[in-house]
């Protein structure tokens, strides 16, 4: 029971990071490096999951990605992919909830880069993609890694959005916090709940320490 919830939590969190990270890098780039109309709005939307009740996020996802929703319906009719009430849906809900954390970490590291370094690369003959891959991305690495680890650790415990959008299906979407909740609801589940809480506690702490440690090591590597 615990192991299955743990395995599922790790799997969901991993997928959510894989899904969210590239988008977080793009969003961070747009927010800190480009000037366009609606930038403030994008900034607000990115941060919305931080302030909304998670149930609202799950509900909105359900409206969009439910089999009758505009995106979910299209995915189902075109590719036969069902998102709602699956572990993929749990990963999506988790990705949305942890997205602001990733964007913030990536953006901080991006803003710490001296833009003149990129200008220098330009004068040395590096085009924009070359420049991004050889200068910007390596210098952002500490933030990207830290963001990924924090989002992963936070994603292990996402509850509200997951239970709303993906429901509480054993073996499919019943991650650690959902299993804990279920255990608390069932008679005699106290011991199980305590064990699950302990696991969550250890995972969260490990994630935070690891994020700090890795990002410090990487920062040293890039000489900052």
């Amino acid at each position, binding site marked *: 029971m615990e192991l299955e919830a743990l395995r599922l939590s790790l799997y969901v969190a991993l997928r959510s990071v894989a899904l969210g990270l590239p988008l977080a890098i793009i969003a961070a780039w747009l927010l800190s490096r480009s000037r366009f109309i609606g930038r403030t709005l994008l900034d607000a939307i990115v941060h919305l999951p931080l302030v909304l009740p998670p149930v609202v996020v799950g509900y909105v996802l359900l409206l969009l990605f439910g089999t009758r929703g505009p995106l979910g319906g299209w995915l189902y009719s075109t590719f036969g992919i069902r998102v709602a009430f699956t572990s993929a849906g749990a990963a999506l809900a988790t990705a949305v909830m942890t997205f602001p954390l990733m964007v913030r970490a990536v953006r901080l590291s991006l803003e710490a880069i*001296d833009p*003149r370094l990129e200008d220098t690369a*330009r004068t040395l*003959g590096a085009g924009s993609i070359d*420049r991004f891959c*050889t200068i910007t991305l390596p210098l952002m690495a500490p933030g990207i890694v830290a963001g990924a680890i924090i989002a992963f650790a936070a994603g292990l415990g996402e509850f509200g959005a997951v239970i709303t959008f993906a429901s509480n299906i054993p073996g499919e979407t019943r991650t650690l916090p959902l299993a804990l909740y279920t255990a608390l609801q069932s008679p005699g589940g106290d011991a199980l709940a305590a064990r699950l809480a302990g696991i969550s506690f250890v995972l969260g702490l490990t994630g935070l320490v690891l994020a700090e440690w890795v990002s410090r090591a990487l920062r040293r590597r890039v*000489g900052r």
Partner: protein
Amino acid sequence: MLEVDITLRRGDFDLEATFKAATPGVTALFGRSGSGKSTVVNLIAGLLRPNRGRIALDGTVLHDAAQRVSLPSHRRRIGCVFQDPLLFPHLDVAGNLRYGQWRAHPRGSDAELAATVELLGLGALLRRRPHELSGGEQRRVALGRALLSRPRLLLLDEPLASLDAARRDELLPWFETLRDRHAIPIVYVSHEFEEVVRLATHVVLLEQGRVAAQGEVAHVAMVPALRAVLGPELVGAVVDGRVESVEPGTGLAHIRIGHSLITASGGGLTGARPVRLQVLARDLIIATQKPVGLSVRNELEGTIRAIVDDGREAVLVEIDVGGPVLLARVTRPAASELALEPGRRIWVLIKATALRGHVHAHARGARAEGETAA
């Protein structure tokens, strides 16, 4: 030839610069901070876009607003070294150098890398990280990285600023080598006139976003607008000459300037090299008859060409010493007591220790009289 004719308006800053710079050669952009020097550099490099105008280098149009042509920065092949060396912190010295080498067209060879490492004395530093280098070393790496990208033009934006005098003296010879042996066209931004004297062939004087004067260094040195920037301490003539001989015992150099032979402290000069001297106006003494019994090594006979105001207490006397024109700063009472006036024959006294020649391959040492001040 680098041709620049640009206008840039940004908020309260307004730049309108038109000048031409010979290539190869070193053109100094000189002026106070805020005069627009760095802006011009960024415009040439393509890091900024002018509102209007044209920039061309040796026939290639880099930017032409009228024709809607603007070569992106990474295709211009213009190497930059800024005041801040801006080495890539995630790469070691070798990685930084290769960054330039790999993007050169055609891609730089390892022999070229080795030659640059040798030229700039970077052999022992290759595995070091930028933050482990001294300020002078960082600048040498930045210079090597720019050179390896095989630029058609090198923009050096105050590359020696924020270094102490010792480091500066250590680095200046690298730039001199570059100018004399490699013949890479250089635009050198500085607010230190001594660097301009040592490195430049031409000067463009910028003031509040406008070109106040341009031309050969010796010419611009005499322009009133430049005097205002330099201040009384640094005003002086720049003269080119050629080393005739060096005294073996003392190392003092005898330098031919126009018709005159002057003695200057050698500073490691060796025979028969073109040199350039900065003769500060405050170091000159004027005598109305040939003096006797003085320790001063240089007594040049000359004719006063003009006398111009230089503040409340002094005047500047322009003296033709048979070819080059020198500037002497004398107090107003002295000028009136000696009855100095244009056309008068006088003697100019200069201590040898106040003069120091710098080897300058582009100095007009071999030329006949009159050309230095032209």
